[in-house]
């Protein structure tokens, strides 16, 4: 069914394309949100990625790669947006947190805030790598395919993303402890 929709969409059928993306949009939005940590930004990134996908769909030669291609487009849009956002906020000492309003049931609030702050200190690509690995469950080879980098490079960048996250969390923990002692 998807192949038929995809073939129709590649020949300019807008309704077929919308049907095709409707079933995928939640997963794509959730991925975008986790990279950008902002609902409005994630919605915009999703829209931009889908419009690009529509525009370039005729160049997709392997229908079996549609989902991987779509994810790749989205991740690159998110990295570009996060890079722009990072520049806009580069001089701010305190970054806003736009996390879900509902109370978190899985993690203590203190841990969640630490994670949020630590994550925002990562480079956009490091954020994307962690989301691909921990949220979408991608292996390094799939991360490599999505980002267009060699598998060895993906493994190395995943390692460095973990290390950067750990360093960011440790730094934040130290600030909290030092602040506590001086108070």
């Amino acid at each position, binding site marked *: 069914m998807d192949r038929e929709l995809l073939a129709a969409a590649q020949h300019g059928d807008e309704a077929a394309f919308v049907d095709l993306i409707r079933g995928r949009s939640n997963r794509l939005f959730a991925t975008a*949100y986790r990279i950008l940590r902002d609902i409005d930004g994630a919605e915009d990134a999703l829209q931009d990625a889908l419009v690009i996908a529509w525009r370039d769909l005729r160049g997709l*030669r392997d229908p079996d790669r549609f989902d991987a291609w779509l994810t790749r487009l989205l991740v690159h849009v998110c990295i570009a947006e996060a890079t722009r956002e990072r520049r806009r906020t580069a001089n701010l000492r305190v970054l806003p947190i736009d996390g879900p309003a509902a109370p978190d049931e899985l993690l203590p609030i203190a841990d969640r805030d630490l994670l949020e702050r630590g994550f925002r200190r990562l480079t956009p690509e490091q954020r994307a790598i962690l989301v691909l690995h921990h949220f979408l469950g991608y292996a390094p080879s799939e991360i490599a395919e999505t980002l267009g980098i060699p598998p060895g490079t993906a493994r190395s960048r995943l390692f460095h993303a973990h290390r950067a996250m750990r360093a960011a969390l440790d730094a934040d923990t130290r600030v909290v402890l030092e602040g506590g002692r001086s108070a």
Partner: protein
Amino acid sequence: MTHERDLERLLDSWFADGPLVVADRVIDDTAARIARQGQRPAWRLRSWRFSSMPSQLRLAVVVGALLVAALAGGVFFLGGGSRSSRAPSAPPSAAASAAAFDCAAETTGCAGPLAAGSHATANFAQPFEFRVPGGWTNIRDIPRTYGLEVSGVTAGPAPPIQIMTMIAVADQRSRQCEPVAKSGVGSSVDAIIAYVQGHPGLVSSAPVAASLDGYTGRQIDFTVDPTWDQICEPVDAFRPAVLMLTDTGTPPGRAIAYASDARVRWVVLDVNGKTLIVEYAGDAFWADFEANVAPAKQVVDTIHFLPGS
């Protein structure tokens, strides 16, 4: 909190939390946007040429190509060689089909769909002949570029082939990606390979020795680095792209840039003292790049360069 396993578990839990459902209006808005957005022809997706040129320059290029076509038989084009030394032109079947074929990027003079068998370039500055199986189309045949691609959008994965000469490395100065040659960078095989290797916007393979029809050179694969953030609006207004090539014409007319979903192989050759690039423009998400490139490489391997230029 930050031991490796703890960190992994924390990240798993943290990412599991958060919104999972997109608002319906986002898809509705997307549908409205695509209704205003056309689809690009498949051949335009791999690289961009001409699209940011001033209209008068575009016109000049088109008129120039028309003049070449009209004067077929023994003239020079942009310093190119004598057409009289060229191989026989394409078979009548290809020429007939070309009459209704729109060549890529507002150029003229391409042969269009090619019958299985032997063909030769008509306008390319370094003439050559080659063989194709059925299903290939010549989309561009101008002095600096000869382009082939598998016909049809539903064809199996196979990268378009662009064979380029009159090469100059481009200087990416602005979002408009004007085709301006980068000063201080040569156009020898080694200079171009070194430029690719050292470009901050590219992730490249180690170059390897290559040859074609007895001419030697080097081959290198590359993709756009995910951290590269420069935009080339004629290629893509949203995603980063790397502007790589222009040409030695005055003013230059070629602008070749690669967007972030491209995986490219260049075979850079020295042919009769001139640099020539065979470009396989694939997709970065291809699981088996080599397998997809193989049908295109089979065509390229039949190339026989002819005297001229």
